[in-house]
């Protein structure tokens, strides 16, 4: 299976008040950061662990990777290309904030072989952007999209957010209509979540904002799915939609058990049955690297049970669980063993089953975790011995 490379750029011009990704506002450290990043790349190369992997995606995430210049991006990509087997025509994505890109920068990115942009629009309503404390407004978002298109990026994605307090159906439809004015290949529509340790969460705790109810969120969600499907954006994961064959290949790796190697603070890796995470503090990251230590904060070996559980919730949140593959890997004939449950889920309109896979419906996606839990619980309830015999 081809693998993916992820590079975490931990800088933002200003921290948005709902965001819990690791990033800091001190952009003066960017150059130094790139040096250390290159150090980490060299460290991983000399460890030699990844020499058997072939890569076909690279993803610059953040933070705000578009704070980096084309030169800085090239400085990072060069050692990657030199030391890893990266296929020609690989998908190379960078996340951009509308306020941080201009024509020149985009040209430089293109020259650095970036071929996919993911632009953090979040909303086309100024009131919502304001609420989210984004550094850009709706017009700037639109301008950046025009710019991207004019610069020749064909594989263009935007991020949007729903379930903002007081958000109505019309607000969502408005943003979607605006989005359809651009030749997008991909849209990620995320549900706003209240993450601990964010100011947004504080406001929630203090009763300053009232979140939508689950029912309200669910109806917004279902109308988003419907609207996007009508415009030819097919859902291929809980929050992701694309034109035919233009899914984000990199993100698919996370849900299909493919290996990925992450660089930069707070980046995650999955390789050889083990998951690990880099430290999420820039200075500690620097420090460990200068001591020639791995900048890890955590790593774990997956047990059989972990893998089975992951396989269920990852495949179901994406494009569906492939029956034969699952049976081979976990010695469990899910279709036969859980027939009662699967039948009732199908009749309830949560699931569709065909000969090769089980896949969630739109209604199912909005209960994805509930359904996965039910399936996992039922599997655990089955006699372990019986599992082993099949």
């Amino acid at each position, binding site marked *: 299976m081809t693998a993916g490379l*992820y590079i*975490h750029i931990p800088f933002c011009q200003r921290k948005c008040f709902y965001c819990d*990704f690791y990033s800091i506002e001190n952009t003066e450290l960017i150059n130094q950061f790139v040096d250390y990043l290159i150090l980490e790349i060299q460290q991983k190369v000399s460890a030699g662990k990844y020499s058997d992997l072939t890569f076909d995606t690279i993803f610059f*995430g953040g933070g705000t990777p578009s704070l980096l210049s084309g030169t800085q991006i090239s400085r990072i990509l060069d050692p990657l290309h030199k030391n890893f087997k990266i296929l020609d025509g690989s998908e190379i994505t960078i996340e951009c904030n509308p306020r941080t890109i201009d024509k020149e920068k985009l040209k430089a990115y293109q020259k650095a072989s970036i071929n996919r942009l993911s632009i953090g629009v979040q909303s086309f309503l100024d009131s919502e952007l304001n609420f989210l404390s984004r550094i850009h407004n709706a017009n700037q978002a639109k301008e950046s999209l025009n710019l991207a298109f004019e610069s020749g990026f064909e594989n263009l994605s935007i991020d949007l957010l729903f379930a903002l307090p007081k958000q109505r159906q019309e607000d969502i439809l408005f943003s979607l209509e605006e989005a359809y004015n651009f030749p997008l290949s991909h849209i990620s529509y*995320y*549900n*706003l*979540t209240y993450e601990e340790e964010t100011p947004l969460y504080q406001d929630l705790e203090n009763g300053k904002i009232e979140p939508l109810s*689950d*029912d309200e*969120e*669910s*109806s917004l*969600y279902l109308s988003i799915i419907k609207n996007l499907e009508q415009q030819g954006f097919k859902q291929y*994961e*809980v*929050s992701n939609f694309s034109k035919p064959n233009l899914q984000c290949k990199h*993100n698919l790796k*996370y*849900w299909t058990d493919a290996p*990925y190697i*992450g660089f930069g603070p707070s*980046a*995650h*890796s*999955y390789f050889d049955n083990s*998951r690990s*995470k880099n430290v999420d503090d820039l200075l500690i990251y620097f420090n460990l690297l200068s001591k020639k230590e791995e900048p890890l904060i*955590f790593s*774990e070996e997956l047990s059989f049970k*972990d893998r089975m*559980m*992951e396989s269920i*919730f*990852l495949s179901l*949140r994406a494009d569906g669980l492939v029956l034969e593959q699952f049976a081979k890997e976990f010695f469990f004939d899910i279709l036969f063993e859980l027939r009662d449950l699967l039948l*009732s*889920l199908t009749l*309830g309109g*949560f699931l569709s089953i065909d000969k090769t896979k089980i896949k969630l419906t739109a209604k199912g*996606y*909005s*209960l*994805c*975790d*509930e*359904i*996965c*839990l*039910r399936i*996992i*619980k039922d599997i655990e309830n089955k006699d372990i011995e019986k599992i082993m015999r099949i």
Partner: protein
Amino acid sequence: MNNIRNFCIIAHIDHGKSTLADRLLEKTGRVSSREMTTNQILDNNPLEQERGITIKLHAIQMEYKAKDGKDYILNLIDTPGHVDFSYEVSRSLAACEGALLIVDATQGVEAQTISNLYMAIDSDLEIIPVMNKIDLPSAATTMDTVKQQIIDLIGCSETDILSCSAKQGIGIEEILEEIVHRIPPPKGDPNAPLRALIYDSVFDTYRGVIVNTRVFDGVLKEKDKIYFYATQQSYEVEEVGTMHMKRFRTGELSAGNVGYLIASIRNLQDTKVGDTITNFNHPCDKPIEGFRIVKPMVFSGIYPSDAADFEDLRESLAKLVLNDSAITYEPESSSALGFGFRCGFLGLLHLEIVQERLEREFDQNIVSTVPNVRYKVIKTNSEEFFIDNPAQLPDRGNIAEIQEPFIRAQIITPDEYLGNVMKLCIDRRGILKNTTYLSAERVDVEFELPLSEVVFDFFDKLKSISRGYASLDYEFIEYRTEDLVKLDILLNGETVDALSTIVHNKKSADWGRKLCSKLKELIPRQMFEVAIQAAIGSKVISRTNVQALRKNVIAKCYGGDITRKRKLLEKQKEGKKRMKQIGKIEIPQEAFLAVLSIDNN
């Protein structure tokens, strides 16, 4: 025999029996003050210490050199105050010649003060009233009233009443002196055939059952062959002695004394509290009066949370019964909960203790059903039987009568709450029998009540409507025919047997409605809508539903942080594991106790 004094300490709950007992032990040198490191010496099991109550009686022998210069042997029994254990208390009283009746100087006479006093009078005991907790600041204002209450109650004179602070060790010596002088020495004939009372027994893993006994006549000696009247078993005595802090072997116990015996007895069930021990070869002519087989009053289904743990639970119950013979248990099955046991208890406190011990000492994860009483069913074909589980009730058409146990409840309350108490009891189908003023502002109210109405939150309600001042004591009187019906709960059209209850017809509609809405609160929204119905026979009397859940998904799952997501799901999964699955529906364990949290008034 003249230098022996046998006495118990009796009181309402929490008036300070065990604390006083500890002080007596300390004063007589049975324990050194160094050993008094824990607050309670006698209440030595963890549940007792945590709850601050006595669950199991404790007996201990002390030696005391009185001011008259003579040495005395004092046999003390500290008894539990809670009404669930009143039979045990009555047998302890039968083993003594005297009783210390403790009254909290700030609380005054309460329900169990009176019921215990009457039991002591029934056993012809010399009663020494002791006012405790005089160290409390509020005692200064309440003491005189409390004294008067005691005088009115016992008909003693003021000088008969002792005062002490068990906590601070004030007045302890005087109590010891009064025990020696006022309590008569035991009578009895050491040469007559053996006649001894079993007032308690405990199980020891190495020695089998250890019987606590009071010898009335004759001598109990090692190697003797003895005979138990009620169980009709005989044994050879292995060891006899008295209880100090540990067992103290003496080889024999003669008339008037209190001690223990060991005789290779395997089962606690073979030693019935209240039974008479005699010599197999020279039996006494008649057993000691007052023996009764204690019957469980309250029942509840106990099921393993995880069906696979059924055998484990069975083993745990078997072990538990080894040292608590008052529990009964029988396997039963429920379509909702699978295989489990119907267990019988002396009362609600006993039930709680057993559940807690199962979870803590035996590490069992259990689901229990709402406690119920034992009903007597008379069918139209005149067949009669008892049921311990509402689900066992036959079809309505076949039932001629249902009878339920009634109790006589004695409630003592300040008269300002009398109205509240009356209302509560009448709501609970009580019949007022008597009211007596104990003093100008304290009333003793007697009600006859169905026990079933008392097992639900009655006690808590009583406390809350009287700001904690009213106290309750009760005893079983008889079975009475009442207009009772079985109320079933249906979830998505299926009866959930473990949720069936038996209620009075008059109350059924209201009850059904409250139960439905409580269940609606407790059952979480899930993928499918859950219809909740309450029905009597085939007639649905109330309905509501839990709407289907519409959203449970974590939106973000990119950047590759799969571990966090898996852990979140695992946490949710643990929550789900604690739920029982009935068909498509997941029911949290608390739902099976929903009835208990319904506001009854």
